[in-house]
Every structure is written in structure tokens, then in C-alpha cells.
């Protein structure tokens, strides 16, 4: 766009003062945003930690040393490590198709991605029981061949996949749509292959959005309770995931351990921070390398 280039040449010294708000407005917004987060986010989190640390740090650590807790943590990590990459691949593919091309039925396709969000988790689990369960359509055949899908890892992964399908896709689509396709078209016209274009042009542009999508997807994959609960079978030390283990602990009136294991999932926040600083670091160095090109 010519207007942009003209502006960029003009220099940027006054940029900061004119494209932001009066300090009072600024601090007002910050206060409002933090107030909302306090009410709906911070206080519940503090409550979780307050309960988890009720018996001191040693009580907190003891909660994880239990064999069943460790098995649950392992299973949750395994299920998420299978579900998240698959859904990420899907998210990128569909976002590419939807944002780079115009075709009939696009809005319906986008809406279909949202379906798993609206399906009650209990129903999400139930549909797998209806499909693969002993009374279900495929169940008798599977049972004859001794293939276990539900009440075993495959069922847990399938339920997790279903519940987390939308996240990466829905995060990427609006963002990639707002990006348009000029840059990719330019790359292709200049002779880059499709794959090169994706890696060199698209990926650097979408990295934030992709990161948020993967983190949301991962968070949800690890935290999912309802759907997994239906297909897990609740076998201690074998098919209990972390959220299911938390429920067991709570039902044993062991609120301290329940909240302690749950608070472990807040470590995701640290992962988020780390992932962001890594991407940020890379971004800065790439940008520095590209800078001479831009000033032409």
C-alpha cells in the first residue's frame, strides 16, 4: 500500500504520543481490565492455591508423590502430546484453506469447527460409547478382536481430540483472514514453492496466533474432565487422568491434595511465558536481520 510506505519514510518520532490515550484513560482501562480479571480469574486462582497450600509446602509436595497421582499426570501428558500436534496440523491446514481461498460453503465449514465446543462434554463422551461401546455399533466387532478403544488410552485421546479440535483453527482463521494473501501471492509469483511460502512468509506472520492456539488447545486438552470421564473407566493408576484424579481426591475429602494436583496445571502459565519469550527472542533477531532490506 503506497500510503503506508509514504508514512514510513516520514519517520516515527511523534508516533508514540499521538497513537495512545491520555494517561488517565490509560490507567483507567488498566484498572478496569485488572478489576475484571481479579474478580473472575485471580481470586479463584488464589483460592485454589490457598487450599492447596493449607498444610504447608510439604503437604503440597506429598500430594504428587502418590503413585496414582504420578500415573494420572503421565497419562494426561501422553494424551495431550498426541492430541495437540494432530489438532495443530488440522488447524493450520483448515486456516490456510479458508483464509487464502474463496469457495462456496466457507461459513458453514467454519461453523462446523465450533460444534465440539457446543456439544456438552457428557454427550461428547457418550458418542464414543455409542460408537465403540459393547452395546454400540462397532463394539461387538472390536471386542471379538480384542481391540480396546474406550476405557483405554485411544478413547481418552479421541475424546480429547474431539473437545480440542476448534482451538488452533479458530484462533488462526480470523487472524489469517485479516492478514490477506498479498504476501503469499507475491512470494509465489516470485517463484517460491508453496511449502517455502508457508515456512518463510506465512509462518512468521502467524506465529503469535499459532502460539495462542496451541497453548489454549493444550490447556483444554489437559484440563478436560467431562468427556474423558465418560470414556475413561476410572481405573486407578491406569486410565485416570489428572482431572479425574482431582475429582477422586476431592471425593475423599482430601481437598488439599485435590487442589494441589489441580494447581500443577497452572504451571502451564509458566510454559506460556517461556514459549512467548522464546518466540519473542527469535522474532527480534529475525527482524534485526531483515531490517537492512526494509530500509531500501
Amino acid at each position, binding site marked *: 500500500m503506497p500510503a503506508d510506505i509514504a508514512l514510513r519514510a516520514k519517520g516515527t518520532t511523534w508516533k508514540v504520543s499521538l497513537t495512545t490515550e491520555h494517561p488517565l484513560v490509560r490507567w483507567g482501562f488498566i484498572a478496569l481490565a485488572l478489576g475484571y480479571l481479579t474478580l473472575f480469574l485471580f481470586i479463584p486462582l488464589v483460592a485454589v492455591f490457598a487450599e492447596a497450600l493449607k498444610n504447608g509446602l510439604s503437604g503440597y509436595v506429598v500430594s504428587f508423590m502418590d503413585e496414582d497421582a504420578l500415573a494420572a499426570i503421565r497419562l494426561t501428558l501422553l494424551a495431550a502430546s498426541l492430541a495437540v500436534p494432530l489438532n495443530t496440523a488440522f488447524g493450520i491446514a483448515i486456516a490456510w484453506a479458508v483464509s487464502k481461498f474463496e469457495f462456496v460453503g466457507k461459513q458453514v465449514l467454519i461453523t462446523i469447527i465450533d460444534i465440539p465446543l457446543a456439544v456438552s462434554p457428557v454427550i461428547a463422551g457418550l458418542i464414543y460409547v455409542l460408537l465403540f461401546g459393547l452395546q454400540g455399533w462397532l463394539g461387538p466387532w472390536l471386542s471379538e478382536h480384542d*481391540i480396546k478403544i474406550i476405557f483405554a488410552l*485411544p478413547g481418552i485421546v479421541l475424546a480429547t481430540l474431539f473437545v480440542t479440535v476448534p482451538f488452533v483453527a479458530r484462533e488462526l482463521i480470523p487472524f489469517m483472514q485479516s492478514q490477506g494473501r498479498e504476501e503469499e501471492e507475491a512470494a509465489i509469483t516470485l517463484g517460491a514453492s508453496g511449502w517455502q511460502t508457508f515456512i518463510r512468509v506465512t509462518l512468521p506472520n502467524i506465529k503469535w496466533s499459532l502460539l495462542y492456539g496451541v497453548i489454549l488447545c493444550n490447556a483444554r486438552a489437559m484440563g478436560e474432565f467431562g468427556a474423558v470421564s465418560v470414556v475413561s473407566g476410572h481405573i486407578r493408576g*491406569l486410565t485416570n487422568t489428572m482431572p479425574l484424579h482431582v475429582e477422586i481426591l476431592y471425593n475423599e475429602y482430601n481437598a488439599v491434595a485435590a487442589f494441589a494436583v489441580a494447581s500443577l496445571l497452572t504451571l502451564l502459565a509458566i510454559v506460556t511465558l517461556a514459549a512467548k519469550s522464546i518466540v519473542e527472542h527469535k522474532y527480534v533477531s529475525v527482524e534485526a536481520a531483515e531490517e537492512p532490506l526494509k530500509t531500501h
Partner: protein
Amino acid sequence: MNSLKRRRLSRMWRTNVVFFATTMGIGLLLPAFGLAETEDKEILNVSYDVSREFYKDYNAAFVKYWREKTGQRVVVKQSHGGSSAQARAVLGGLEADVVTMNQESDIAVLSEKGKLVREDWRLRFPHRSVPSTSTIVFLVRKGNPKHIRDWDDLAKPGIAIVMPNPKTSGNGRYSFLAAWGQVLKRGGTDREARDFIRRFVQNVPVFDTGGRGATTTFAQREIGDALLTFENEVSLIQKELGADRFDVVYPSVSVLTETPVAVVDAVVDKRGTRTIAEAYLEYLYSDEGQELAAKHHYRPSLARIADKYAARFPASTLWSVDDLLGGWKQAINTHFADGGTFDQVYDEIARQRK
């Protein structure tokens, strides 16, 4: 143009085949991660929610007993959840060797719908396959400030009762039936029972979906004057949530709550675990098994052991669902199915408000 289109189509087709193959490959590989049997002899006990403390002790005792008797090592896996949800899982293919539920209907369904359990399951173990029982009691705040002594006190205005939702919890169903049946047991009619129930449920401010959720509401959120719960839960509540905070009230009449057990024939025949599964349930009736039940505040079925612990279980008139209400199937249809008495009472309350 045409050839280009064809080429694109064929490319699309090719990539589809590749993805199809990959995904199917993943789908086929996944089952390999499934339950691998590590021990030679392993059985799975699928049980209801609040039995875990008992079975933790009992499984250790059984493993030891079996090793001494046969020299065989056995591992007992446990699964706990809401009684009906567990029954649904077994129906759906969760390979339970034995089921231990808190409601007759949750095993009956395995026999009727799934043909997994033989029809005569109630006759295969002593005492109609019920190794231990319990009853519904009231837990009130220390000193009983609202003077709750019996059922009629619960239905008085200004009293708040906490109990789980009869539609989602076995504990809730027993509590509801206990309130209904006591009217009949004391010579009342169905009409009077319904009148009582209407006043009774109007005093319930919260319906948690499970028994232990209701306990938390009563104990931690400090809501309500009385909690309806199983007798065997009371000692655990006092141990975990404060012994000096609550008193127990035994109503003059209450329901006998039964925890039936069964071997899942279809599974044990497939897995070759019938001997162990049967021995596992039989051991529940041994002196050791019955002592453990008593230790966990279940009423033993064996008279010998029951007498020994008579002081722990105050005598009150207990009636069973089979005798007074024509069995679980009928009780569920009358009271908890859609449009049953539980729903009717709420419709009446809603109409009164208007």
C-alpha cells in the same frame, strides 16, 4: 485447462489417500497403547463412589488371603464413580470382573440390557448378594440447635435440608425414598407420603449431584440444618471434617441401604478369571471381610459379626426397598423417572407459586 484440472484433482486425491493412510495408521497403532496386562492374574472391581476406603483395605486383605491359600499373586484394580455411571461404563464394555454397586437396579441393568450378568445373580451369594448394609441418618450441627429428632422435624418450615439430587445420585435416591417410605411404614397412605415429600423438598436449598458434594455444601459452605447421608459416611465425615462439629440423629424409621455385588459372567468367562472373581466376592462374607465392613461402619450381614458390633450400630426400624416399595425397578419408575413423584412435587410447588 482440462488436463490441468484433472491433474489438480488427481493430486487432491493422492494427498487424501496419503492422509487417510496416515490417520488410519495412527488409529491402528493407538490400541497398542491400551491396557496391557502386566500381572498374570488381575481383576477389576468396578464400584460406586464412596466405597473406596473400604475396598482399599479389603483388597489388601484379599490379596494376602489368596496368596496364602493358593500361592497365586493377584492384583485388584479399582474403579470408582457414581453407581449408575459405573453401570453404564460396564454396559459400554469396561471389563469389570466384579461389580459392587449401591443399588440393586445398577446390577439388574447389566443382566437385562447387557446380558453380562446371569439373571439369577441375587441368589449366587448369601443374603441376596448383599454382604453389608447401611442406612440413611441425619447429620446435624453440634448440639442440634434446631431440635431435629425425626422425619417430621425436617419438614417443618424454616428448616434447611441438604441432600444430593435424587436424579443423579444413589445417595439422593435412598434419602428421598427414606423420607417417602417412613410415612408408609408408620401407617400413612401414598397421599400422605406425597404431602410430606412436598413439604420436605421445599426445605432443600441445594441439590448437589453427588453425595460428597452435598457433604461439602453442608460442612464447608455451612448451608442447612441437617444433612441426609449414609450411616457409613458419618464417621468419615467426622474424621475428615471435624469430629466436634456435628451430631448424628437416628430417625425412628429409615431405609435399609443395600450394596449388592455380582460377578460379571461375560467378562470372567472371556478372561478366565471366574475362580478368583467368585472367591473375591465370597471373601466379603468371611469373618475377616465382615470385620472390615464393620470397621468401615457398614452393617455386617453375618449375625455373628453384627452382634459383636451391635453397640456401633444403634437399632432402629429399617425397611428395605424390596419389601416396602416393590423393588428398585418400581421405585425408580414411580419416583425418579421423568414425570415421577419427584418431578410431580416440583410441578406442584411451581404451580403454587404462580
